[in-house]
C-alpha cells in the first residue's frame, strides 16, 4: 500500500461526519416517504425505494474508497480527458437513451439506469478548476472568460438537448467560482438584475413600462453621479443589456420554452394560478410542509406524502416529508446541516494551496448550494418547479454518487494539501 493512501489522519472528519449524518437521515426519510402502514414492509425491503437507496449508499462507500486509493494527481491530470469522455457520452445519450419522466437523460446498463448528466457536474467542475489553476491564468483575460463560458456551455447545451432543463441550469452555479476567482462583480450585478428583470417581465404585462423604468434609472444615475465618459459608457451598456434581456426573455418564454416550464414560471408569480393543475405540485408540497407545524406529525405519521398527494415525494419533493413529519424543528436541523456543510466546504477550499483545489472546492460548494437552494425553494414556493434533487436526501443512485464523488474528491485533495507546492 502506498504511503499517501493512508490519509485517515488528514481526512477532514467534520465533513465526513456531516456526510454520514445527511445520508443516513436521507435514507430513513426515503422510507418515511414511501411507507405504507398496511403493507408491513421494513426499511430494508428491496422492493421499496429505501431498500434500493441502501444499496446505492453501500455503492457510495466503494466509490469513496476508490477515490481515496487513487493518486491525488489523478484528478487534475485527467480532468480534460474526463471532460472529453463525458461530452462524448452526453452526445450519445439522446441516441441510446431511454425516456424517464419527460427527460431523455438516462442510459441503461442492464436493469439499472444512470444519468450521465449527473456525472457531468463533477467532471465539468474538475475541468474548469484545472483551467483556472493553469499557469498564467488570469480571470480578467477576455479569452479566458470566453473559454470558461464554453466549458460550461457545451455540457449545458448537450443536457438541454435531453430536455433536462433542471440539470442544465445547475451549471450556472459555476458563476460563484468565477466570482471568487476574480470575475468582475459587474457581471454578477447585471446577472442578478437580469434575473429580477426577467421575473418582472412575467409580472408586468406591458414591457414598455420596464424599458421606461430602466431608461429613467439610467438618466438619473448619469445625471447625479460623476459624469465621466467611461462610467457613462458602462451604465449605458448595462442598460442596453437589461433591455435586451427583457425582449429576449419575453421571446424565450413565449416561443422557445416548453409550455410546462412557461406555466411553472407563470405559476410562481401567481400562486393562485390553477391550483388543481399546474400549481398542484407546489400547492400540495406547501400543504404537506405547512401542516407539519412546529414539531411535525412524527416519524411515519405524515399523511400528505404517504398518500401520494405530493408527487415525486421520494425524489424532487423529498423535503416535504421532512417538513411534514419533523415540522419546523426538523427543517431547521436539515437546513443547519446543509449550512454547516457549505461553510465547511468553503473553509476547506480556502485552505488549499493550489488554485486548482481551491477552484474545485468552490465548484463543490456552488453546486451543493445551488441544488439546496433551488430544491427547497421550489418545495416552499419560492422558486419555480425545476426538477433537481436535494443532495443526499432525494432517492436515486446517480445523484447520490455524483454528490459523493464531488465531495470526496475535494476531501482527497484536501488531505494532500501539504504536498502541493503553492503555484500562485
Amino acid at each position, binding site marked *: 500500500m502506498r504511503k499517501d493512501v493512508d490519509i485517515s489522519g488528514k481526512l477532514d472528519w467534520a465533513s465526513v461526519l456531516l456526510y454520514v449524518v445527511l445520508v443516513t437521515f436521507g435514507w430513513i426519510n426515503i422510507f418515511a416517504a414511501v411507507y405504507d402502514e398496511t403493507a408491513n414492509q421494513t426499511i430494508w425491503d428491496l422492493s421499496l425505494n429505501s431498500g434500493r437507496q441502501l444499496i446505492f449508499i453501500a455503492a457510495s462507500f466503494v466509490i469513496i474508497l476508490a477515490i481515496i486509493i487513487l493518486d491525488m494527481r489523478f484528478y487534475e491530470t485527467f480532468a480534460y480527458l474526463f471532460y472529453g469522455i463525458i461530452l462524448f457520452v452526453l452526445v450519445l445519450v439522446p441516441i441510446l437513451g431511454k425516456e424517464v419522466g419527460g427527460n431523455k437523460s438516462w442510459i441503461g446498463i442492464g436493469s439499472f439506469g444512470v444519468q450521465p448528466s449527473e456525472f457531468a457536474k463533477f467532471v465539468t467542475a474538475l475541468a474548469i478548476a484545472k483551467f483556472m489553476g493553469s499557469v498564467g491564468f488570469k480571470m480578467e483575460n477576455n479569452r479566458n472568460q470566453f473559454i470558461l463560458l464554453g466549458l460550461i456551455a457545451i455540457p449545458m447545451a448537450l443536457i438541454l438537448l435531453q430536455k433536462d432543463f433542471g440539470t442544465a441550469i445547475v451549471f450556472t452555479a459555476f458563476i460563484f467560482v468565477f466570482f471568487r476567482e476574480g470575475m468582475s462583480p459587474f457581471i454578477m450585478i447585471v446577472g442578478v438584475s437580469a434575473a429580477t428583470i426577467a421575473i418582472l417581465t412575467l409580472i408586468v404585462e406591458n414591457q414598455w413600462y420596464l424599458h421606461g423604468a430602466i431608461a429613467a434609472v439610467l438618466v438619473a444615475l448619469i445625471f447625479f453621479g460623476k459624469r465621466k465618459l467611461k462610467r457613462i459608457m458602462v451604465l449605458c451598456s448595462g442598460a442596453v443589456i437589461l433591455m435586451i434581456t427583457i425582449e429576449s426573455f419575453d421571446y424565450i418564454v413565449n416561443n422557445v420554452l416548453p409550455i410546462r416550464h412557461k406555466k411553472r414560471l407563470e405559476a410562481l408569480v401567481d400562486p393562485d394560478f390553477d391550483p*388543481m393543475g399546474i400549481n398542484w405540485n407546489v400547492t400540495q408540497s406547501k*400543504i404537506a410542509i405547512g401542516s407539519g407545524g412546529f414539531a411535525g406529525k412524527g416519524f411515519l405519521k405524515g*399523511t*400528505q406524502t404517504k*398518500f401520494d398527494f405530493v408527487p415525486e415525494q421520494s425524489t424532487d419533493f423529498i423535503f416535504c416529508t421532512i*417538513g411534514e413529519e419533523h415540522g419546523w424543528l426538523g427543517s431547521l436541523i436539515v*437546513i*443547519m446541516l446543509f*449550512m454547516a456543510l457549505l461553510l465547511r466546504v468553503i473553509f476547506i477550499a480556502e485552505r488549499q494551496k493550489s488554485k486548482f483545489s481551491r477552484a474545485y472546492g468552490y465548484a463543490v460548494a456552488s453546486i451543493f448550494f445551488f441544488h439546496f437552494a433551488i430544491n427547497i425553494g421550489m418545495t416552499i414556493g419560492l422558486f419555480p418547479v425545476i426538477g433537481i434533487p436535494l443532495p443526499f436526501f432525494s432517492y436515486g443512485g446517480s445523484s447520490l454518487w455524483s454528490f459523493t464523488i464531488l465531495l470526496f474528491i475535494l476531501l482527497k485533495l484536501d488531505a494532500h494539501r501539504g504536498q502541493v507546492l503553492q503555484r500562485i
Partner: protein
Amino acid sequence: MNEGRKDILQVIFIVVGLIFLIKLFFIQVLDNKYAELADGNVILRQVEYPFRGLIYDRNQKLIVFNSPEFDLEVVIKDVKNFDSAKFCSVFEISREELRARFKAMKARKEYSPFKPTIFMNQLSNVDFAKVQDHLESFPGFYVQARTTRSYATPALANALGYVSEISKTNLDRDLTKIYKQGDYVGQSGIEYFYEEQLRGKRGVRFKLRNVKGIEKGAFKNGLYDTLSVPGQNLTTGIDIDLQQYGEMLMKGKSGSIVAIEPATGEILSLVSGPSYDPNLLTGRNYSSNFKQISIDSMKPLFNRPLMAQYRPGSIFKIAQAMTALQEKVITPETRIRCDRNIINCHGAHSNEDLRGAIANSCNPYFHNVLRRMLNKGVVNDPFGDTRIGLEEWDKHIMSFGFGRKLGIDLPNEKEGLVPTPAYYDRAYRSQAWKFSNIYSLAIGEGENLVVPIQMANFAAIIANRGFYYTPHLVKAIGADNKPLPQYQERHYTLIDSSYFIVAVDAMQKVVEEGTGQYRAKLADIIVCGKTGTVQNAPPLFDHSVFIAFAPRDNPKIAISVYVEDAGQGARAAASIASLMIEKYLLGATKRPHIESYVLAGKFE
C-alpha cells in the same frame, strides 16, 4: 487577491438559509391554513346516503321503491391508452358527446385531474351490467353506486311527484344546511310534501384516503362516525288498483277523478288526466324527459284535482239547499213554482218541493231560494240587505271547504272562489250591487269557483251527514302508523246534521229517478249522486261533472269526476263515477257496456 469575496459568498449562503427558515416558520408555525388543507386532503367525509322511505298503497302494495343506479367517475391522471372509439360504442354515445362531456367536466370549478369526477351519471342497472365487462379496458374510470326512485306502476304520477337533484337556488335557500350539492330532493307531490319524513338522515364516516381517493382506513378509529338512518315509510290511502282503473277510464280525456273514504278523509284515488309515467322522471333521461313532459300541450304536469278551477254548476244547488234550511228561509216541504220567465230550466216539472227541486235541478226554485237568503229584509236598502245576506251565506258555504285551500298533503292546491261582499265591491268598483246582479250564484254559474277535490270532499260531507276529515293521501307515517295530526281532526259544517238527510234523499232520487242518470245506477248498491254540467264557451262542449257517494248508509266512497269538454254530467262523469264505485266496492264492474262506452269516449 479577492479574499473578501469568500465572505460575500458565505453571506449569500447564510441569507438564503435564513430566508428558507423564515418562510418555513410562516407556513408551518404561523399559518394554520395548511394544516386544515391537509386534513381536507386526507380525511374523506364519506356520506352514507340513507334509503329514502318507501311508499305503499292502502293494501300494503309497494308503489314507490329505491333501485340501484351507478355514476361513472373518472380520475383523469389515471386514464391510460384511452380508446375513444371503443368507449363511444360501449357507452353508446357519439364522439361529439364524448368531447362535450370531457369539456363540461373540466370546466367545473372543483375539477382536478387527480380526483374522481362524475363523468356520466345515473347509469341504470341494465346499463351497468352492459358496460361492467368493458370497464377494465378503461383505466381511470370507476363506478359509484347510489339509489334512485322506481315506481311499481305507471300510475299516480302527479300525486307521487318526483325526485331530482337539488337546484342551486333551493340549496342557497336551505337555511337548515341539511342539503349538499348533488343531493336528491322531492320536487313535487308526496315526495315534496313528505320530504322531511322520507329523506332520512345521512350517516357520515370519516376515512383516510390517498390522492386517488382510495381508502386507507378509518380516521381516529371511527370516533366521529355516525350511521345513516333510513327515511320513514309512508302508507297511503290510495287503492292502487282503483287508481290504475281510474287512469285507464280517463285515458284520452282531460279531467280528474277524486275518490275519498268519507269516514277518514283518506284519498282512495286521485286521477289527473292526462298523466305521464313517473318512471320517465328518474335516472339518466330525467332532464330530456322532463323537458318533453313540461312542454306537452296537454299539460300532464298540471295536477287537475287540485289545480283546475271550475264553476260548480248544478251540484252547488245541494249546498244552497243545506244553507237555506240552516238559515230557515225554507223547509224541506217548501214548494216553489218553476217559473221559467225568471230563469230557464229543463225537464218536465212545475212545482217541486226541495228534494224534487234538487233531483230535477230546478233553476227557478234555487233562484228563489237564494233571493230569500240574500234579501231577508233586515234593512230596507236592497243593496245593504243583499250585503248582509251574502255575508251570512258565505259563512255557511265556506264551512263546506269551498273558497279556501282544504289543506291536502300535496303542494300547489288552489282555493277556488266564494265571492264575498268585498269581492263584489272590487268587481263593481262600488257597493252598488244587489241580488239581481249576482243571482247566477243560485245555480252555481256565477263568480264562484271550485276545484275537484273540494267537490269530492263535499260529497264526503253529505255522505257523513255534515262533517269531514281533510282529504289526505298518507294515512300512516313510519312506525307511528298515524297520519299527520291535522288529518285526525273532524271538521263540522255550520249546517245542522239533521238537514243532510234531505240532500241524501235527493241524491238518491237523482240516480234512481232522474232522467239521464241511469248510467250511475247500480243493481246492488244504493248510489247517491248529483250531476253537474259546467257551461263552457261555445263551440266547446260543456264540462261533464258528477259527484256521488255509496252506499247510501255507512258510505265507503265519495267521489267527484270531471271530464272536460264532454257534455252533460249524466254521461261521461256519471258513468266513470259509478264504474269507480263498482270497482272499489265489488272489485269489478258488472256493466261492461258502460265501461266500453267510457273507453270509446264518444259522449255526444
